[in-house]
């Protein structure tokens, strides 16, 4: 801007520059004022950068903050019992001071596994159908519908589970296997969870399939592959990292889902013995025990430890899936 800060060499170098003329035209303020203005802009920029950096560091450390805080609060119970005992004991009698989390950890794993086993094949087939085969009409209607259902609160899914899934298991599925079940069971929770994660997995996978260039499919088709072969050998292979990411997203949701599971899982503090028996996953335990928490000694500490265990499971799982993802991506290249 300021071209008048002249040195000898410079005035040799340049004639009066166009900006001098145009500055006159614009009638801009004096250089000193401009410098002041410029200075304040730069200061603003520096300040903003510093505070943004601060916020960024803060939020990237949040996970540690959460873990630390939960650990802090669960120290009383950790001081009383060994971690191994807490994790692997099956006896849950808070009134007698026995806090074994094993049934709950197993409950969480069972329910999540069932949900994934049901949801993944169904969702993948649907996503493939929607993105590769479906007529345009179907696609245009189905996708927004699926997205819409991602927004329905989990309590509603729980409600629906009680209304439909639980009676279904009690009256049809259990008798078909010659056993009795109240319907409130691992299977019910798994099915409800599966339905809840349908929209998540479908949405992401359809997007992943959509991002694969059409030319790739044409290449396979022109080599004489059928539609399904194209999908199997080209599309699925190329989309693998994205599909894994989609499943992980759904799984994360399933691990932590509280209310819907709480409503249909049966909530008996025993290690689940069959699909038709009840389970008591960690989140349900935490939510359910809120009322009694402050009246029984160590109970609050135990519940916060339960949260910490849940957090640890999710973290472990996240890191694991990331490692798998990296490997898969490397294989494709």
């Amino acid at each position, binding site marked *: *801007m300021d*071209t008048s800060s002249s*040195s000898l*060499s*410079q005035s040799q*170098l*340049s*004639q009066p*520059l*166009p*900006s001098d003329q*145009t*500055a006159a*035209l*614009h*009638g*801009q*303020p004096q250089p000193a004022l*401009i410098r002041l*203005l*410029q200075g304040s*802009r*730069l200061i603003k920029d520096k300040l903003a950068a510093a505070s943004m950096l601060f916020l960024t560091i803060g939020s990237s450390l949040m996970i540690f903050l959460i873990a630390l805080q939960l650990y802090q609060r669960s120290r009383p119970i950790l001081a009383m019992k060994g971690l191994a005992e807490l994790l692997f004991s099956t006896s849950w009698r808070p009134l007698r001071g026995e806090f074994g989390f094993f049934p709950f950890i197993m409950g969480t794993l069972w329910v999540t596994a069932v949900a994934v086993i049901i949801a993944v094949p169904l969702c993948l087939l649907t996503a493939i159908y929607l993105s590769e085969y479906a007529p345009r009409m179907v696609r245009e209607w189905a996708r927004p519908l699926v997205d819409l259902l991602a927004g329905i609160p989990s309590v509603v899914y729980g409600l629906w589970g009680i209304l439909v899934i639980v009676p279904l298991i009690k009256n049809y599925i259990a008798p078909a296997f010659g056993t009795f079940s109240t319907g409130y069971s691992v299977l019910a929770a798994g099915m409800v969870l599966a339905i809840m994660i349908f929209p998540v997995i479908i949405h992401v996978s359809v997007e992943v399939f959509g991002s694969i260039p059409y030319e790739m499919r044409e290449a396979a088709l022109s080599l004489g592959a059928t539609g399904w072969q194209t999908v199997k050998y080209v599309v699925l292979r190329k989309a693998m990292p994205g599909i894994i990411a989609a499943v992980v997203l759904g799984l994360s949701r399933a691990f932590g889902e509280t209310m819907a599971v709480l409503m249909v899982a049966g909530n008996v503090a025993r290690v689940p013995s069959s699909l038709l028996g009840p389970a008591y996953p960690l989140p349900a335990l935490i939510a359910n025990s809120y009322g009694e928490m402050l009246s029984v000694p160590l109970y609050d500490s135990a519940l916060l430890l339960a949260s910490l265990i849940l957090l640890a499971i999710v973290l472990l799982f996240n890191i694991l899936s990331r490692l798998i993802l990296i490997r898969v991506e490397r294989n494709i290249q």
Partner: protein
Amino acid sequence: MELRPHVSIRNLNVFYGNEHALKNITVDIPQKKITAIIGPSGCGKTTLLRSLNRLVDSVDGVKVFGQILVHGQDILDPKIEVTEVRKKMGLLSQKPYPLPMSIYDNIAFGPRLHGLRDKKRLDEIVERYLREVSLWDEVKDRLQAPASKLSLGQQQRLCLARGLAVEPEIILGDEPTSALDPKSSQHIEARFLELKEKYTIVIVTHILRQARRLADYVLFLYFGELIEHGEASEVFENPKEAMTREYIKGTIS
């Protein structure tokens, strides 16, 4: 032809990580002339251009050594305020990138940044620079329309006008016509020939014919090295280096 240096590049070296992208470039860029940087793709043309307004800074792992002097001031000096450097250099990129706002606001963006608020004066500036790129008559009735609604050629002229509105001394063009149809390209070229009355212009181009049409001065780069530079007529008619001759004949590309 009388040439005064406007920008003096001294021993400029640029590394991307371990890749030596520009090797010891020393050259003067003449004032109020059109300088064309030519050479095969990947030879560092764009890097050289982007060194001039320090956009190379934003590349990861880049290291820049040497000096680029404008009015005796080294713009590579880290103490220098980079926004001021960039303001002096208007950039016209390969594809037009209108800012996500109206035609009017696109032009007014720069002056507003630098503290101009007066509505009447902004109006004057918008009109003046739109006229300068001969876009005014095409858009004067729809200044508030989104800039993205213009045709590509119009967008590129708008971008040129937007750059001019911050009163640069130097216009940098990075293959500014490569995304345009022939007619729009012609339009931009015509503007360049007018604008060199007032501005120093540096363009990167891979179209030799365009360089012949426009350039007063030519730099020929080959794999990061400055092979030859000089007045356009000299370089094109009577190249000193064998490599340049080959390139101009079209044997290497």
